[in-house]
């Protein structure tokens, strides 16, 4: 199982991206994407924003579950209060772990947002944030 996680700003600009593999059942946490799949992943995430924009109005929760599919890949989405989208590309269905992962990332993101020098839609370069996302990924996925 390989994952590709991205936080997308309000103007479709990526704020943070992280590629990782599963740590469950003996996984080493390294993504197994083919080289040409890397740019494809970004295309897929970008295109699934269309679906997020539609689903976010009908779904009660911030966690939108699986919003889009592309061949055998799935995209799960999460919107924050400030219309920032968390998107996770994954190849197996796992609703609950992804929810927990998103919730934890959301907390970290809100903390980042509290930084007086951080503006909405700015790229997140904080090392602390990065570590917390990695920890969450290891913990749940």
């Amino acid at each position, binding site marked *: 199982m390989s994952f590709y996680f991205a936080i997308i700003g309000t*103007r479709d600009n990526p704020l943070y991206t992280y590629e990782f593999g599963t740590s469950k059942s003996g996984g080493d946490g390294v993504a197994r994407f083919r080289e040409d799949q890397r740019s494809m992943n970004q295309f897929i995430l*970008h295109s*699934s924003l269309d679906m997020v924009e*539609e689903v976010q*109005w009908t779904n009660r929760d911030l966690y939108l579950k699986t919003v889009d599919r592309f061949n055998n890949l799935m995209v799960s989405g999460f919107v924050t209060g400030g219309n920032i989208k968390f998107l996770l590309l994954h190849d197996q269905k796992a609703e609950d772990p992804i929810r927990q992962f998103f919730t934890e990332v959301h907390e970290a993101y809100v903390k980042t947002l509290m930084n007086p*020098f951080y503006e909405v839609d700015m*790229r997140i370069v904080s090392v602390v944030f990065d570590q917390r996302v990695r920890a969450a990924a290891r913990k749940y996925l």
Partner: protein
Amino acid sequence: MAAPDPLARLSRPSLSSRPSTPKEFSPAPHLRSSTIDSSASSVSSVFNSPTTFSANIEDTRSLICRAFVPHIAVHVSADVDELVREKGFRGGFAELLRPFGEDLQGRINVRDSQGLSASHDDFGVRFVGLADVAASGERWETGMAHAAMNGGSSRKGEETYVGGSIEEVEELMDIQLGEQEDGAETELLDEGVDGDRERRSPYWRYLRRLLSALPVSPHETFSHPVACVIAISSRNKSPIEELRNLYTTGTNAGLPSYVHAEYLRYYVLIHDEDRDDITKSNLLYEQMRRHFGVHCHILRLRSGKTVISDEDAQLSPAPEWLAASEELAVIRNKDDIEGQSSLYLPETDVSGIRTMVREMVQLSVVPFMERCMATWNDQVASRRKGISGRFMSLSKRYFTSSSSRNSGSASSNYDPTSGSYAPSTPEAQMRKLADYAFMLRDYRLAHSIYDLLRTDFNNDKAWKYHAAVQEMTVISLLLITNSISHKTRQDTIDPHLDLALYSYLNRCSSTFSALRCLLVTVELLRLRSNCADDASKWAIRALDIKGLGQLSRALITERVGDCYRARDFSGGSTHIGTRKRKSAMWKMLAAKEWVQAGKIPQARRCLDVALPMYETSRFEGIDEFVGRLKELTAYTPLLDDGDERVGKQGDGADDDEEEVVEKVELDNKRMSLVVSPPVMEMEEEKKDDSFVQS
């Protein structure tokens, strides 16, 4: 057990409302509405280009309607072919008639099963040589296309052209796209209206070639002859004898056994204006009328070749629905024979043929089909639909499966060895009824019959029939209704299409039929803005079909992008959500496919449409991908007029976005000036700025 007639009538499907009002087919309102639509979309939409959705609804519908039209076989005496060859038509009388059948002048009135009449102005028929029908059936059955074609050519001295081959269509597209490359400049100058652009687009031509010259096959009867033109000329010494002779040879022409032999015979006397006496011909014509009844016509033709310098010479119209293999042959022979492509006819001939074809269709062929439909509907379909018919089919299924499994085939009419039903069996007749109804555009009746047949074919395990009927159920359903609910799509269309594909691909390995089924459905779904997602879904499914060439893949990938673009703001249950990003992604993928196929201009076109979406993207992977494509295609923005327009429209939205970006950048800077943060944070700030600008 005789069928209770009143009951049967009651159970007939309600045909109260017309499937399509004649207004839908008239060109004038269509033009007007399309201009309104496109202007509206240019105001409101962000990413819709005027070429994609608003126009062409009628075009696409009409294309699909005109793909399934009655076929009329042509069986003539040697002297007729000789006369026509003197005029320069090497293919004989069928070739002379063919272009006139494709585009009938005026409206054709058709009565549906409820007695309501409707008129269609884009009605057409196809003329095919009777011998070609027989030969094409053989070829399709054996499945050895090229071997059979070579055999046919040696036997008759001329080739038989049949559609139904994806490879040939691809080969043709390859040549045509190459030509387009050479003549790109000239073609772009005469930029027509949007509909014209669409009609000239490669995908459009691809789809039309795919639907051209449907092969004669047991599982559908669209290409089976509905009527046969039997013609003699005034040169003939013993005309009535010859006609009788033609009748018998026509009946024993070696049509495949599954073709129903009871088609209409239409007798034509061709009078040679230059050599023979009209009074004698008129006498003969009177005699013919006495012998054969009303289905007769006298056609006055000039003999001898017409050249362009002659007075009142008219260019013979070019046939549109050529099989791909035939067009390939034309292209190959172009270098050998000069001037073969453009043939001229005297004006009197042109109007004479027009009148004859029109009269034949309106007064003989259509009434004949209506009569057949009425008969079959009363005798076969209503019996099957009635209570006793249901009971019969149910009990048949029940008892045969319980009593003895292996005798199941004995009680069914399906012949598994030849894979077909005999034309006299109720199943074959009902299929023919449904196909006739479809060709006469009575889609409600057609749909109800197709729906009935599904279970029959499924019980008989006649998989190819089953798949074809599933396919037509979906297509006729899409042609009946204007709006299709989400539920119908999920409960009806999706499973039907799935089954059709499964049967076509896995049980019959009939790639061509599967592709045709998918692409027609995709086009019909695409016309509805709220079905764009489904259209794209099925188009993507078409990409999974094995055995498609690079060009097909590129064309279909591009079409997926178009399908997503067809979805506008007003569509969907929630009235929100466009698919502009998805459309851009598929266009981008199509550009990649085009590059792989070596068709750089096509790739550039795709990039023109897709790039505005990604200009402001900050994804490294996407940027890299786009950069590589730009490099491969030597892309310079705003390639030509037409695409400039498209590009501008896309930019309209992006301009706003760029402004926003700039404002935010300014804000950042102002903030950094005012607050003067610590050094560490300053660096982070700078990184951000440099990132946004990069």
